[in-house]
Every structure is written in structure tokens, then in C-alpha cells.
């Protein structure tokens, strides 16, 4: 008969349970360690502001296959984020497909998109995406078709925008994102709440937010360089 210490006996009896408990504890500790700190603006109960860093916001590229080239996305990346998009300035339009001002804004953005795509000095530099707060993929598809939208709109059925952009966000809400030092789109250069109906005015705002070296020569000649 083998003699053993009481500790070893207990360990043998409850070996499985103890292993599971230990594993769970390790998982919980690691999860806690890697969990992101709360976003500062969310902790402060405000929306993203110019100067903030646009956070990780996962988007499914499979929702917008026809726009992969437009956004310059890597061919096989399913989950993308704003920083993966190739542009000098990105308009992120938080909208709701049933919201009347958002529909008006979408029509303005469509016109701005067309102007940009026809201007060699802007094409590829400024891009536009929509994120539809509270709307399913199906509703977004219908909306894009009904309004003949030329830019991609992602569904945000789970309303992650509220957790990422900030609490109390109301549609339409526009964010203008610029490149950081490493060339990735992460810097919030501007925001706007509500509708801008005049495409010319919106385009002017956008070109002013471009990095100086990318700004159209006409804007610089007009003395608008450096304006924010």
C-alpha cells in the first residue's frame, strides 16, 4: 500500500477539476491582461473629437465586394478596419438608412464622390464609406440600391458605433480621418453632426483637411493652405 501526503491525495482525487479550474483562472487572467483599456472618450462620455485616434472598428469586407478596389483593400482580408483603407483622407459617415437627414446627406456624399472621381487631383486621395447604425446588411443593400449610392456602406446592426464612436451618437454623424506618421488612417481630423447639403461646401472642407502636400494646387493658390 502506497503511503502519501494528504495534499497529494487531495490532488489525485480532484485532479481533473483542479486542472480545469487552473486553466480557467489562466484564461481569465490573460483575457484581463489583453483587454483594451476603455476608450478615453467613452470613459469621458463624449464622442470622438479632432485629435483623437480612430480606434479599431472591425468591418466585414464581404459586405462590399464591389468596392474592394475602390478602398484599396488587401485581396484576402475578410475583416478590415478603417486603417486598412488606402487614402489620404477618409469620410466615415455614421448613418441610419431610415433617417431623413442621413438620406439627404447620402445624396450629397454621392455627388461629392462623383466630383472626386472626376478630378485627377483628388481621385484616390479622398474616399468615402458609410456605417449604418442599427441596420442589417439587407436593409443597407436596399438603401444603397434605392439611393443609387456610389460609395460602400457597411452594416452596424449591433450598434457598435455607439461603443466605439461614443455614447449618445445621433445620425448623421461624419468623421474625417487622416493618416498618422506611419501612413495609416487613424487621426480624427474633423467631425460634423447633421447634414451638409451643399456638395461644394463639403468638398471644400475635405480638401482643406488633406495633408498640405496632397492638397489641390488651386486650394493652395486661394490661400487656404494650413486652414483647419
Amino acid at each position: 500500500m502506497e503511503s502519501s501526503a494528504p495534499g497529494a491525495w487531495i490532488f489525485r482525487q480532484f485532479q481533473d477539476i483542479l486542472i480545469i479550474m487552473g486553466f480557467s483562472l489562466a484564461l481569465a487572467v490573460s483575457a484581463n491582461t489583453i483587454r483594451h483599456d476603455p476608450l478615453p472618450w467613452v470613459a469621458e462620455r463624449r464622442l470622438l473629437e479632432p485629435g483623437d485616434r480612430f480606434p479599431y472598428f472591425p468591418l466585414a469586407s464581404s459586405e462590399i465586394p464591389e468596392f474592394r478596389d475602390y478602398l484599396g483593400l488587401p485581396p484576402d482580408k475578410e475583416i478590415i478596419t478603417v486603417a486598412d483603407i488606402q487614402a489620404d483622407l477618409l469620410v466615415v459617415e455614421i448613418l441610419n438608412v431610415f433617417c431623413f437627414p442621413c438620406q439627404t446627406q447620402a445624396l450629397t456624399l454621392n455627388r461629392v464622390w462623383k466630383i472626386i472621381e472626376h478630378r485627377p487631383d483628388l481621385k484616390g486621395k479622398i474616399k468615402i464609406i458609410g456605417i449604418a447604425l442599427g441596420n442589417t446588411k439587407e436593409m443597407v443593400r436596399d438603401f444603397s440600391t434605392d439611393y443609387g449610392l456610389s460609395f460602400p456602406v457597411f452594416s452596424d446592426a449591433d450598434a457598435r458605433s455607439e461603443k466605439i464612436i461614443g455614447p449618445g451618437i445621433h445620425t448623421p454623424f461624419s468623421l474625417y480621418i487622416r493618416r498618422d506618421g506611419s501612413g495609416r488612417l487613424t487621426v480624427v481630423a474633423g467631425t460634423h453632426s447633421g447634414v451638409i447639403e451643399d456638395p461644394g461646401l463639403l468638398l471644400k472642407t475635405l480638401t482643406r483637411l488633406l495633408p498640405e502636400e496632397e492638397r489641390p494646387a488651386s486650394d493652395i493658390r486661394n490661400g487656404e493652405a494650413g486652414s483647419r
Partner: protein
Amino acid sequence: MKRKEAVIRFSALSVCLVLFLSFSSHAGPVRVGVLVHLTGDLSEFGQMQRKSMMIALENIRKREADSISIVPVFRDTPADPGKVRAVVNDLVSTKGVSIITAGMTSTTAWVAASQAQSLGIPFLICTASADKITEQGWKYVFRLNPPFSEYGNAMLWFLSEIARPKTVAILREEGFSGLLSSDNLSERCQKSGYEIVLNYLYKKDTKDFEPVLNKIKKKNPDVIAMGAFLNSAVRLIRQCRELRVTPRIFMGLGGGFTLPQFGELCGNAADFVCSITIWHPSVPYPGGRQYYDTYLERYHCHPDYHGAEAYAAMQVVADVLERTPSLDPEDIRASLLATDMTTIIGRVKFVSYGNKMQQNRLPTYLLQWEGGRMSLVWPPDLASRKYVYPFPGWKRRPAEQE
């Protein structure tokens, strides 16, 4: 040389003559064709529209004494499509109208619009809502009111952005053709990811809703959407209180839920019940409340959105006729295209989007009852107070003497 001079003189004279004719024809009274249902089942709406247009004309004349003189030529709209065409032809060829405006059903408006298009006469729709009417590429056809597919937008916006329900029950009265058909609502709810736990059509004379309300109570939906005329709307809400049916939101689809009598008859049971609408006197556009009060005082009944749309149509017609350089259909059409004004139902600007052409875009609204008053609570930029959501329950509201 002489020949050249004669040609120039002749051209100059012709231009002067054309200008004179345009000016002279424009300076006198302008006949405007108005197609409404003055007899038959829909005469209640047609008469409301006729009276509303007359109030609009009075107000326009009062405000601008030197404004253009408009002579409305009202015509009853027959149900028979062949007769509708004949009425349009008569307005144009016999009565010499320069523009036609129409507050009629989609079926008749479709026929009248296609006839106006083939005659090349500007045609302004103010009530018919079938989406397809402004999707035909018809150059002379303009629409003031929103298309049917957009009627429920304020509700769906509120639900998707604020309420985020999981389940919806739909109750609908037979014959009710309010602002959103149950098929349309059901389809849009499903596309929005909401489960329809019950879609029930009840008979018009239903007095006892207890069996269906008990079913609903068991399923405990987040939203109860109801399409009902006044009497049923009142009965439904009273019986919901008796049975303590407590969804997160009661949503009326227009009809009885937006009538002042609903609040009077339900008492405090009406509190926090919501309804969609496409116009209400509390909508903050200039002249809306004044129109409502004038109508109520003069005719002792409440005008609804049909009347307001007709009033707005006359505001647009007057504005267009003031701006048009001549009564040539092309000039009137160009003036319609350039319209950008505020009417009692909101801003009017005819735009193209998706498949639609020359379609005005208007917001729709969510109203909520509280303390016997109906207030605009959505969209937030036009709201007169903040919405109460979720429905706070019946506890602190004892049944009143009924």
C-alpha cells in the same frame, strides 16, 4: 443688304410679339386644373382637399395682394381610367389650364399623370403615393408627397436607432389603408431583423379584443404596431390597459391614433402611445398651425395630412406661376424644377434619386401622446419634447370613469 435688314426687323418684331404675348397671358388670371375625388367613397378627402386649397388661395392673396390671380378649375375624379383621361383632356383643351394638380388615389393618379405626360402639361401630384409614379421618367410629372415606401421611415428609424426591438406584433383592421400596409411593415421588420410574433387582421366591427390581446400578452412582444380607425384604436388601447398588456412601445400606424378624439376618448390610457404621421399641426413649418385652426374654425372638423398636402400644392403652384417667365409648359416645368421653398408640410425641392425623378423628399414623423396632448418626438431635430421610451406601464394610471 435690304433683305438682311428686313430679316433683322422681322426677328426683332417676332421676339417683341412673343414677349408681349407671354407677358399678357401671364399677367391675367391663370387657370389651374385641380383633380380631386369630390363624390363617392373618397369624397371626404376630396372635399377636404378642395377646401384646403381654397384656404391656401385666400392666404396667398391676403399676403401678396399683387400676386398672380389663380383660378382653380376643380374636377371630380372618376374611378374609370378612360374617364380620367377624358377629364384631363377637357381641362387642357377646353378649359385651357396651364398646370394640373391632383390629390387622388394612386390608381387614378397613374392614369392622369400618364395622360398629362402625353399632352405635355405640367402635373403636380400631392397625395398619390405609389412609388412607380415618379419612376417612369415622365418629364412633366412632379410629386410633392413622399412615396409610400418612405411613409414608415420615422418609426423604423426610431426602432433601429433607439428601441432596437427583437419582437413585433401587428394588429390591423380590415379595410384600414393607413400609412403602412401590414405586408410592407412585416417585410421591413423582417429585413430589420425583428421577429413578427403575430400578424393579425381583425374585422371592422370587432368590439372584444381580449382573445387576441391575451395571445399577444403571452408572447410579450417589444412592439405592438396597430393599424386602426378611431373606434378600434380607442378600444384596443383601453383593453390593453384592462389586461395590462405592456410592450416596450405601442405604435399606431396613423389612422385613429393621430386624431384628437383618440386622446379625449382614451383619457390617460392614451399616454405614451406613439403613432407615425406624415403631417401634423405641431410640425414646425410656417403657416401649418394657422391653416389647421382656420379649417377647424370654418368647417368644425380636423383636417389631416390630405388637406395639408393640398394646401401645400397650391402654395407650390402659386410660387411656380409667380416665377415662370411665361405660361409655356416648358417654362412652367423649368420653374417647377427650380422650386426651393418651404410650405406647411416642409421644404419642397424636386430631386432625382435612385429610380425616382422630380420627387420631393419629406421627413415623416413620430408623435406621442402625453397628458391629453400629442407631441412630435421624432426626428430629434424637429421634436417638441423628448420621447418617453420604454412604455412606463399602467401602474400609476388608474382607469378613469368611462
